[in-house]
């Protein structure tokens, strides 16, 4: 099908985009890569009256190290971020997540920030962003504010963004040397939407895990932090037994919904297995093996 009618507006800067959103009101949406929004419009599941295209705004296009981590502008394309040397150095879990998302032609056009702001709880980038941690920079008529990654995903396709606000950039916080990451998902085919996914980071010091982050996707209304699994890991020596225990903890207390791709029980099982395997990979990387 074709998109319903709308008015198209081109913003040349973040300030101009914020001004347009303020002026156009609740019926306006930001158009970045459009790889989630435009399919929804073609399917007539979304029908915004106005789109504000930000991909021509040079101040939103940047990606790179910014002192505290990796900064990704709202117009930065997924493929650009995925292959960027600073992403691979600072946030390789995000690079892995992007490489699992969609298809290369979709990633040429899609943006990382767009995927985060879309807030699909089954999607790759929100889980990786939440796992590594960071903040979201939001601009509106009243100026800018920062939202921690931990508070950015409120529910299915729901974020704390207010009317008239747009995300201008996100910062993914750097983790210290000695960090390893793991990102794993499972779908019907490599190209399908993931049924469940796990994004993990662990940091070891003197052979002991002193910091861990475990986030699951596809099992709840948001990318879900598994604090019990993290508590199991911290203070332990990396190994198969502790990873199994952490994976068990990650899958305990979740109640995933069933759909045509998998039952809730199956998702729960996937959550455990993917977590265990992702932790095994992360440990090898933290120890310098990969």
């Amino acid at each position, binding site marked *: 099908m*074709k998109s319903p009618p*709308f008015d*198209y*507006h081109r913003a040349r800067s973040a300030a101009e985009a914020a001004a347009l959103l303020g002026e156009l009101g609740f019926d306006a949406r930001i158009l970045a890569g459009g790889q989630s929004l*435009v*399919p929804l*419009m073609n399917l007539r599941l979304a029908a915004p009256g106005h789109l504000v295209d930000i991909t021509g705004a040079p101040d939103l296009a940047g990606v790179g190290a910014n002192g505290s981590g990796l900064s990704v502008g709202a117009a930065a394309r997924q493929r650009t971020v995925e292959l960027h040397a600073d992403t691979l150095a600072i946030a390789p879990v995000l690079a892995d997540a992007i490489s699992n998302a969609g298809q290369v*032609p979709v990633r040429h*056009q899609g943006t990382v920030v767009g995927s985060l702001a879309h807030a699909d709880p089954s999607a790759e980038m929100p889980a990786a962003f939440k796992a590594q941690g960071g903040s979201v920079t939001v601009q509106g008529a009243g100026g800018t504010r920062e939202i921690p990654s931990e508070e950015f995903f409120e529910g299915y396709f729901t974020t704390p963004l207010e009317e008239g606000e747009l995300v201008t950039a996100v910062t993914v916080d750097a983790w210290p040397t000695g960090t390893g990451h793991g990102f794993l998902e499972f779908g019907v085919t*490599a190209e399908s939407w993931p049924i469940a996914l796990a994004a993990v980071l662990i940091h070891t010091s003197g052979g002991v895990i002193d910091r861990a982050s475990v986030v699951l996707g596809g099992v709840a209304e948001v990318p879900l932090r598994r604090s019990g699994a993290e508590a199991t890991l911290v203070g332990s020596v990396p190994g198969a037994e502790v990873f199994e225990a952490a994976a068990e903890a990650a899958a305990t207390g979740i109640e995933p919904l069933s759909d045509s791709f998998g039952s809730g029980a199956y998702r729960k099982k996937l959550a455990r297995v993917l977590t265990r395997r992702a932790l095994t990979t992360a440990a090898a990387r933290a120890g310098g093996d990969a």
Partner: protein
Amino acid sequence: MSIHDISVTVNGAAASGTVESRRSLADFLRRELGLVSVHFGCEQGACGACTVLVDGRSVRSCILFAVQADGAEIQTVESLAPGAELHPLQEAFRRHQGLQCGFCTPGMLLRSLELIGDNPNLTATEAREGISSNMCRCTGYQYIVDAVLDAAAEMRGEED
């Protein structure tokens, strides 16, 4: 609904048009410029039949509005063989029977062209992963992979 004048370069030639904001690039190319290699499959970005190159990169033209492509350089399959002779990639698809109904073929060709351009020495696994962005319901992909590898060899200047 807003109306926009756009100017693009398509297959090396300047083109312009006046489009509704909701006009997809696929619709603009096929219906207004007559480039019928641009196929509409799913029209939701899943199948890859509408793949074109925008500024040298493969995109789904069904989920890109034409107005977003204003100023861009666009390549469709029509550019591959402007004369009577097929492009080596098209010739390899013909030779290996890398198509049956042909509906996915324009998208497959452009995606394959990009893959070979990025990595002239691509392996069978890389070719298979690379074309996983595009659906073919006839061939089972094997002959397409064969064609891509053969075309890559020929484009590297190797005789078979």
